[in-house]
């Protein structure tokens, strides 16, 4: 492709997708943590529906790209036959709980950072360091132990991947392609109905636009790495938007710039921060914020730590597993997504009750 290296093209693609993501999230208030807290604290499900709409859009676009042969989604990390069900549950719950303490998930942290929030700068740095520790450092020892003790090898059970359609098709004796398409249509349709049967959501163009653009960003990410990155000799790994490992890689990239090569995730992280910054300045909402008390600081530190470790263990965040992973219809992504929501719910209850035991009691009492 012209004179540009494949990695440069993919990096530019990641930057543009990040810019669109960051500007959209900043302008529309798209927030996966807010989606849960809105519902729990005020019974307002509009931001949850914006997230679900993004997933539906991502499923439709991604499965269409796969069916057309433009990308082979089976090459993504989400569909691997090494099925990490326990990591998805534990890591997902940790991530969900952590994001309520830290005032938002990985992507929201970058969005708030771009809009001038210095607390988010600290959260991003801690999240990145802990994520890297869990990927390759001290915490990786524990992660590997957990994974080797609990992961299930699907290949040994005669399965080629963990797409929920193909897994169900295998049980029912349906051809893989048809089962995959049927699952994609069924899940996307159910999610669209869930979104648009709600009058408040239908009357909220901001949330509809947010869901559409964020969902398309995930599809765009697959296209950038899978089509533009499909170099015959040196293809880039198939990936799309996710904000835990790339935050760690971005820190490393900044520190070892001359010896590093940009990838999709790093470029997208930069794009989200810049996109949010430009939108915040353009709309007059840029505002420098900082820590005001010790409790607030401790909450952000612990939230960032839980998100960094949990996000790596679960193979992604509310965006990485919650939208990008969900678009592949991987069973592990479905488990991680639901676990993140459960962890987030427990997190809100913890903030409300002031203690973990109180939060558990409140959850059990369905209060």
């Amino acid at each position, binding site marked *: 492709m012209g004179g540009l290296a494949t990695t440069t093209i993919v990096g530019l693609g990641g930057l543009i997708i990040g810019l669109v993501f960051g500007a959209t999230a900043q302008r529309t208030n798209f927030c996966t943590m*807010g989606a849960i*807290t809105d519902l729990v*604290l*005020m019974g*307002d499900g509009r931001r949850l529906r914006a997230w679900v709409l993004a997933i539906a859009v991502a499923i439709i676009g991604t499965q269409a790209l796969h069916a057309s042969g433009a990308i082979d989604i089976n090459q993504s990390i989400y569909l691997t036959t090494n099925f990490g069900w326990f990591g998805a549950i534990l890591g997902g719950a940790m991530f969900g709980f952590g994001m309520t303490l830290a005032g938002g998930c990985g992507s929201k942290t970058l969005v708030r950072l771009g809009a001038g929030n210095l607390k988010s700068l600290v959260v991003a740095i801690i999240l990145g360091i802990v994520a890297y520790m869990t990927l390759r450092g001290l915490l990786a020892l524990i992660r590997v132990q957990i994974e080797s003790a609990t992961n299930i090898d699907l290949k040994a059970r005669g399965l080629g991947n963990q797409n929920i359609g193909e897994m169900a098709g295998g049980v029912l004796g349906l051809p893989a392609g048809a089962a995959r398409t049927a699952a994609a249509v069924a899940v996307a349709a159910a999610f669209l109905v869930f979104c648009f049967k709600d009058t408040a959501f239908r009357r909220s163009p901001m949330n509809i636009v947010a869901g559409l653009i964020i969902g398309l960003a995930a599809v765009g990410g697959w296209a950038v790495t899978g089509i533009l990155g499909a170099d015959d000799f040196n293809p880039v790994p198939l990936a799309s938007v996710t904000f835990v490992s790339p935050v760690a890689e971005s820190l490393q990239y900044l520190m070892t710039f001359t010896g590093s090569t940009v990838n999709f995730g790093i470029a997208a992280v930069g794009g989200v921060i810049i996109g949010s910054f430009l939108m915040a300045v353009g709309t007059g909402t840029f505002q420098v914020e900082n820590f*005001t*008390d010790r409790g607030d600081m401790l909450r952000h530190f612990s939230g960032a730590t839980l998100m960094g470790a949990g996000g790596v263990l679960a193979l992604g965040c509310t965006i990485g597993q919650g939208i990008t992973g969900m678009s592949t219809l991987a069973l592990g992504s479905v488990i991680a997504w639901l676990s993140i929501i459960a962890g987030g719910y427990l997190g809100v209850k913890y*903030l*409300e009750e002031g203690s973990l035991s109180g939060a558990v009691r409140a959850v059990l009492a369905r209060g």
Partner: protein
Amino acid sequence: MTEHLLDAKGLNCPLPILKAKKALKDVRVGGTLEVHATDPGSVADFVAFCRATGNELVESTQNTDVYRFVIKRLA
């Protein structure tokens, strides 16, 4: 004159809403709660909160870096 004041300055989503929800329980129906916050996201949050909980957002103003909300408890 507002009868109750909640200082949520320096706190980010979801805490201003969470604390306002708690504080509102002590406000009599028809009474008002004034909230001070610094999170720019709280502007949209309080509109959504009042809409969803059936209370009235009487006032939403900004004075330099501080946002001021006055909520009238109706429900």
